Structure formats: structure tokens, C-alpha cells
């Protein structure tokens, strides 16, 4: 079973991973975006870490809704409301249980990903975070490791895609040949689940 500490570790692992990979995320965002994805997520997950220390939420759902709120209010770019909605909706789906099973987490994350798709209007194949998140959620019923691999493959598979959502979509054909920064950061967030589990 997964308790509030697991979800805190997940968020801490996300924050650490974003710190580590911020330059790479921003570099990916340079040719097809506005070169701020790494710094935006750094600001967002620093706010998440600070809020979790300050407010010490006691259930899995409360950890994720608090984290989601922080991302919506602190990021400043589109990834804020998108990742914020992902975590908040996942947290709401977990309710106020003190512990949840991995199956419940998989179900809740599916609701979170559905909310992201509704908010941004992106479908698989549009070269967005959805391309990493959808396969990850599918694989999550197998294991955290399988979800990580699926998210990584999903992110890599965005490279030949033509962007149909977000700023990159203005570039049309010129968006082809670049890995999507949002799918890449989504893969980091999914990978952090396995790190949280292993600790």
C-alpha cells in the first residue's frame, strides 16, 4: 500500500529530477518552444517542496492536490495548469484514504490524464505530454518500472511527430525532428514513481 510518505517522496523525487534535468528540458524547449520549460518546472517543484514541508498533508490525496495547486499558481507557463491539473485531479480521485493500492493510483492517474486531455485538448500523436502519459498509465497496472519504460518510449516517439498543440504547433513541419519537452518532463515525473518506491 502507498501512504502519504510515498507521495511526498514522489514529489521530492520529481523536484530533484527536474533540478537535475532543467537545462536539458530548456534546451529541448529552445528549437520548438520558448526556452523556459526547465526553469518553469524548477520554480514549480520548488514551490511544491516548500508547501509540502510547510503544510505537511497527511493523506495521498491531500499531498497531490496541494502539489497541483502549487504548480498552477507558481509555474507561469502552460505546464503549470497542465501538470497542476494532472496532480490535483489524481489527488481528488484518491479521496481521503490514508493508504491507496497501486491499482487505485493507476485508476486515479488515468482520471488525471483524462483531465489534462480535456484541459489542453491534446490527443495521442499531437506531440505533447499526453504522448508519454497515456502509455505510462496503461503500463502502470504492470509495475512502476514498466510505466517508466512506457513513458520514456512515448517521449522518444514524439521526435518525428508534427506538433498539433501548444506553441510548437505554430512551427508546422519545422517541429518534426525534435523531442517534445513536455513529453520529456512527463517521463521524468513517471520515472520518479519508481524512485519513490525504491527508497
Amino acid at each position, binding site marked *: 500500500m502507498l501512504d502519504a510518505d510515498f507521495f511526498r517522496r514522489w514529489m521530492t523525487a520529481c523536484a530533484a529530477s527536474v533540478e537535475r534535468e532543467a537545462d536539458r528540458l530548456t534546451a529541448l524547449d529552445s528549437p520548438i518552444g520558448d526556452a523556459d520549460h526547465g526553469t518553469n518546472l524548477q520554480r514549480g517543484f520548488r514551490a511544491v517542496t516548500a508547501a509540502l514541508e510547510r503544510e505537511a498533508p497527511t493523506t495521498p490525496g491531500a499531498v497531490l492536490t496541494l502539489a497541483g495547486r502549487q504548480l498552477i*499558481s507558481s509555474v507561469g507557463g502552460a505546464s*503549470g*495548469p497542465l501538470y497542476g491539473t494532472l496532480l490535483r485531479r489524481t489527488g481528488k480521485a484518491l479521496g481521503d484514504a490514508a493508504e491507496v493500492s497501486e491499482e487505485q493510483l493507476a485508476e486515479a492517474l488515468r482520471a488525471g490524464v483524462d483531465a489534462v486531455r480535456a484541459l489542453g485538448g491534446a490527443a495521442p500523436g499531437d506531440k505533447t505530454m499526453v504522448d508519454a502519459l497515456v502509455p505510462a498509465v496503461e503500463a502502470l497496472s504492470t509495475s512502476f518500472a514498466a510505466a517508466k519504460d512506457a513513458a520514456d518510449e512515448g517521449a522518444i516517439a514524439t521526435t518525428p511527430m508534427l506538433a498539433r498543440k501548444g*506553441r510548437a504547433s505554430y512551427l508546422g513541419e519545422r517541429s518534426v525532428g525534435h523531442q517534445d519537452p513536455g513529453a520529456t518532463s512527463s517521463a521524468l515525473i513517471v520515472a520518479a514513481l519508481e524512485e519513490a518506491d525504491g527508497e
Partner: protein
Amino acid sequence: MSDGKLVGIVLVSHSAEVAASVAGLAKGLAGGDVSVPIAPAGGTAAGGFGTSSELVSAAAASVDRGAGVAVLADLGSAVLTVKALLAEGDELPDGTRLVDAPFVEGAVAAVVTAATGADLAAVEAAAAEAYAYRKE
């Protein structure tokens, strides 16, 4: 009409200058009656390009006169932030709506219409109608 209360207008842009400037333009084009509550919410709280949910919430609260608030947004994160705040439920005043309209033309149409005392649905319709104005 809605009891003499005017619909509030919030303009959310990635740029503080764009939001403030479009607010000024819309007010100017509305003519004599500039009593329409209108608030810009541009850029990040730190003054950069982007969207601040705090600035959006504060702007909406500041123009809420009880007749509803029409929010117009420019691009990507401005639109997504307003939608996420609306989904949150308690972040924006009751009767706040994101209006699907072109930013500049929609803002002018919304402010001119709101100045007549029209209700939120009429303000929203006027702003959305601005999409139909072709420039070819």
C-alpha cells in the same frame, strides 16, 4: 439588464503591457462611459512573460459587481490557467466565464457591450461575435 450592475471584464495576457494597453484601448473605444469594471492580468507575478494565477484571481475579484465576470485570454498558458482556475471551483468569483473570443477585438466588443448594462450572456456573445469580423 441585470439590476444596474455591470459585468466585469478581465484581460489575461502573457504580457503586462499588452493586457494593460488593450484594457485602455477598449475603455477608450467604449466612449464616455468608462464605468465598466475592467482589470488587466498580464505577465507573471515577477514581471516576466507568462501567466500568474494570483493576478488573474485578484483581477477577477476586483471587477466582480455581482453581475458576472467575462475573462478574455490571449495564448496557451493564459487560456489554460483560466480554465484550470475555473475547474478549481473556488478561485474565481461566481459567474466568472472564460469567453471564447479574439483578444483585442473581443475585449473592445465586451467592454462596449458591458457599458450598456448588458448581462454576461450578451457580453459573451458580443465578444465571441468578433471572430466573425473578416479582414480580407
